[in-house]
């Protein structure tokens, strides 16, 4: 039964490789095994967003029932976004759930995820903390998202203030990522983040 899925993925894989988005380095896919059940995707952070300049790696798992069920997609690269879990990388996107249709392809999925990076939907969030910040303190959200892009996705914008605060927590013996999550969750207020970490 899985041969329909494999055959289809093979075809879609070629479609992505030949697409103009690949030519523009906006999306990329790589095969991880011979059976076409696991792939690695990559999308470039869209311009004029805090994700600009970053490269985001995705884990794509193709179910046996593909294309009648959606592929399971997750961000491997850590990202600060209302619709993507900052812990697990799980994505909240309708087309990967009930709005999936058999006519969609790897290419359309990757492009939809790229579109999700430029237009978040904070009212249907995956990460409640990020969504709250996005709505209530958007400036701080932009700073945080840009900082995460710099640290985890190779983005060019270094934020010295963020780095300093993390180093101060690290000096107290806090693991770097843990410190970053705490500071990000508390709008980079060192005092509240420290309080939460040691409570």
């Amino acid at each position, binding site marked *: 039964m899985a041969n*329909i899925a494999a055959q289809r993925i093979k075809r879609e894989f070629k479609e992505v490789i030949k697409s103009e988005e690949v030519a523009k380095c906006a999306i990329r896919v790589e095969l991880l095994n011979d059976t076409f059940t696991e792939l690695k995707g990559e999308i470039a952070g869209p311009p004029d967003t805090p994700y600009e300049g970053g490269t985001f790696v995705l884990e794509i798992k193709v179910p046996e029932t593909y294309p*009648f069920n959606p592929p399971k997609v997750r961000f491997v690269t850590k990202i600060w976004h209302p619709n993507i879990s900052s812990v697990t990388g799980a994505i909240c996107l309708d087309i990967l759930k009930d709005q999936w249709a058999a006519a969609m392809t790897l290419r359309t999925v990757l492009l939809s995820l790229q579109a999700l990076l430029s237009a978040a939907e904070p009212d249907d969030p995956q990460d*409640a903390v990020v969504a709250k910040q996005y709505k209530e303190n958007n400036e701080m959200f932009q700073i945080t998202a840009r900082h995460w892009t710099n640290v985890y996705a190779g983005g060019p914008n270094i934020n010295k203030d963020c780095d300093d605060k993390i180093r101060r927590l690290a000096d107290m013996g806090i693991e770097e990522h843990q410190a970053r999550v705490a500071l990000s969750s508390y709008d980079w207020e060192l005092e509240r983040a420290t309080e939460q970490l040691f409570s």
Partner: protein
Amino acid sequence: MNFVVIAFKSLVHNLLRMFGFGKGVMRNDLDIYIKTNTGNTLSISLDPAWDIKNVKQVVAPQLGLAPEEVKIIFAGKELKDTITISECDLGQKSVLHAVKSKRKLQVVPSEQSVIEEEDVGSKPLSETLQDSKFYDQRDEKLSKDIIQRKVHFYVFCPTCKSLRNGKLRVRCEICKSGAFTVYEDPQNWDDVLNSKQIPGYCENDLCQSKDSYNSEFNFAEFFFKCSDHISLGEDDTAVPLYLIKTNLREVPCLACGDICDPVFVFPCKDGHVACLECFRQYCSVRLAERQFWQHPEHGYTLSCPTGCPDSFIQEVHHFRLLTETQYAQYQKFATEEFVLRSGGVLCPQPGCGMGILIDEGCKKVACVNGCGYVFCRDCLQGYHIGECESNVDTSNAAGCVYSVDPSKAASARWDEASKVAIRVLTKPCPKCRTPTERDGGCMHMVCTRAGCDFHWCWVCQTPWTRECMGNHWFG
């Protein structure tokens, strides 16, 4: 000596030739039934090379008529003298209808013009319609060699138990007699599938339409036969699977991308195409997840997998393409969904599952035709008086309400164990009460039963709210 050998050789040669010739006749002969409008049936053997004139010459004496007085009717058309048997695509044991011509033969100026007319309009309706009547105008642009390919009808044959090529046949709407001629050819599937579309004339003297005022004008009823097995009589019909079509346009399958033939064309605006293998897979996936849709008119069905609006498959016999086991499961689910949609309940006793339709407001339900279990409509536990208890406590309560035969209790222990497992692992959907297991993720539950789709909170067991999201989204 030499002479003997030669004589022997020629004898063997002759024998072989005779034998071979005899075999040839055996293979070509077509056993046909001829039905008359007086109700008699004749069985005759035909040579496919014959034309209808030959047939009339054979049949007429048996009916006590002259050959010119006989009309031969097949598949809604009167067969003219020049048509050969092989052109009609008759199968073994097909039924032809012979009737006495009532209308006087018109005096025609020359034989030539009659033949021309015949060639235009009087081929029988059969599975080899080589024109593109059942396809859109667009097809006419296709190159000629594609048009020449046989345009088949596809049916589900209950005798062969599988997808087969079908033959279109016609009978009188009123008396069901096949001695019926149509005044015009059907142009599309609506003409064939709906009643009272194509007018015609019934030749059966016993037809009730003969008593009515307008006996010259009846309606045709179309039906299909399987073309792969020898006809088992006039009642041997097959369901047309009209969404399965010959892939004349060579459209690739939406799922696997291959160009296959035949294909399934979804009834959506775009006419999305899937190969039969992918259609089967689509149905199996949806069936396994119980994601068919109970449509009020068409029944338990699916729509186009690309999510097109208004694309439900109306003829549910298309699901006969599933395996026997899957089709049995399909029928079970369909019945259960129908019962639930009609406000009924399914008996909660493990292994029973009997569908019970109940009056509104009635709380006490007895599984009368099934296992005999008496239960509460709301909590699906053993029947009790008063409010339903929470599902943690009912295990004890059920024991108190009625006494159980000890031997029965012993034999039912395994069921009881799975019942306990269901009770421990699941919570009922607050809307439809389907036991639901949470296998990870957040507390936001969406009921997966087709048609329910209720959003609820695993912690509160109430509709999902912003408060749930704020307080205990991830537990």
